[in-house]
């Protein structure tokens, strides 16, 4: 179980300390105002990186779930859990920044007509349900494999939902990353990339910290049991 290495916290910590403030500086100082949207477009540098980061985290969670089902090492289960968990944390940020932008740009907090944001909501709910499933099962093998199977199913759900929506109709919610490249000025794009890197390091930091906490808690439990003279 200790076969997997300890994830570093220092590297992501340093990276996020540099990149996140840098994004803010770039966004407000370097890039110009958007012609259509004006100042409110600045939230782009938060909103989109956060959204992509949440996908990355869910993806990581699903990957670890698959590894768990293959290897049956509880460590992979913990990692999968931590991945899904930070995915929902970043997902919550998306659901905060999106509506703020929407209020500024569309005049409403939420547009029920837009499939894309609704689908994101559903995906978010899907992964919320992961926690319900996990915590209504007793700790042990069964909980681990059920959580893993569920996290893995998301791998099918995410692309299918987006496929369904993307090819179904025109959207209000913008799509800038098309097959012909990013439709925006290069300064915007660069800032966005820095923001994305910042968010990804923040995610790595979050996951490393939580993983450590979880491991310590497990260790404490083991020691408590050992102190009671129980071996398992």
């Amino acid at each position: 179980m200790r076969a997997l290495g300890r994830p570093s916290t220092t590297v992501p910590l340093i990276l996020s300390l540099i990149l996140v403030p840098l994004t803010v500086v770039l966004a407000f100082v370097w890039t110009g105002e958007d012609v259509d949207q004006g100042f409110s477009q600045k939230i782009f540098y938060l909103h989109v990186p956060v959204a992509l980061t949440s996908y990355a985290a869910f993806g990581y969670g699903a990957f670890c779930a698959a590894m768990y089902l293959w290897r049956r090492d509880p460590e992979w289960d913990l990692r999968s859990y931590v991945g899904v968990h930070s995915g929902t944390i970043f997902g919550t940020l998306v659901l905060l920044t999106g509506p703020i932008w929407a209020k500024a740009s569309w005049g409403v907090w939420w547009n029920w007509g837009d499939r894309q944001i609704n689908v994101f909501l559903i995906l978010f709910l899907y992964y919320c349900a992961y926690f319900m499933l996990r915590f209504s099962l007793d700790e042990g093998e069964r909980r681990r494999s059920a959580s893993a199977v569920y996290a893995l199913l998301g791998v099918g759900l995410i692309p299918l939902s987006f496929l369904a929506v993307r090819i179904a109709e025109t959207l209000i919610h913008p799509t800038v990353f098309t097959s012909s490249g990013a439709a925006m000025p290069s300064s915007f794009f660069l800032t966005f990339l820095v923001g994305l890197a910042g968010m990804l390091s923040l995610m790595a930091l979050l996951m490393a910290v939580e993983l450590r906490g979880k491991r310590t808690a497990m260790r404490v439990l083991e020691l408590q049991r050992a102190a009671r003279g129980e071996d398992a």
Partner: protein
Amino acid sequence: MTLEECSKRFGERLALRKATLAVEPGETVVLLGPNGAGKSTLLRLAAGLLRPTAGHARIDGIDAVDAPRALRAGMAYAGHRSQLYRGLTARENLALHARLHGRALDLDGSRAAVGLADRADERIDGFSRGMLQRLALARATAHEPVLLLLDEPASGLDADGRTLLDHVLLEGRGRRTQLVASHDQDLPARLGARAVRLDTGRIA
């Protein structure tokens, strides 16, 4: 069938503590012990229905939980619950079992054995407690297992049924591995079997 330092934890309760037990092929072992000692837990671990928290439960050297189909084909477990479908008739229940084991339904053999000759086409939710238990035993033995795990098989049976059960167990002695949990202190002597005592999860 062997258990090696096998422990099972339910939440904070340790139901089985480092139980080590080896049952030789053809041997019959009777599990004794007070209520809550962990007899049922031990049997379910041996059957591979539970995964041990620590240690190993093995059948023919293979982990019981991952027992391949060939191994499971020679195994039978009857627990506190009948494992039958309440909405089906006795015949349908046995037929499903036979089907899953890739066998033809030998209804005459089974039903005669348990004395339910004329009730085969009744839905079992009208069966009495003892009739259910008989049917559960018929199901467990229908596919002639070489490893038989029984959890208090005599419960609910009348004198007749208990004789029948003793007969089945005696007949199986030497021919298959049998592990039987019971509250009947005389059973080991009656079967000429080894008695293993459990108490609060520990093998005494």
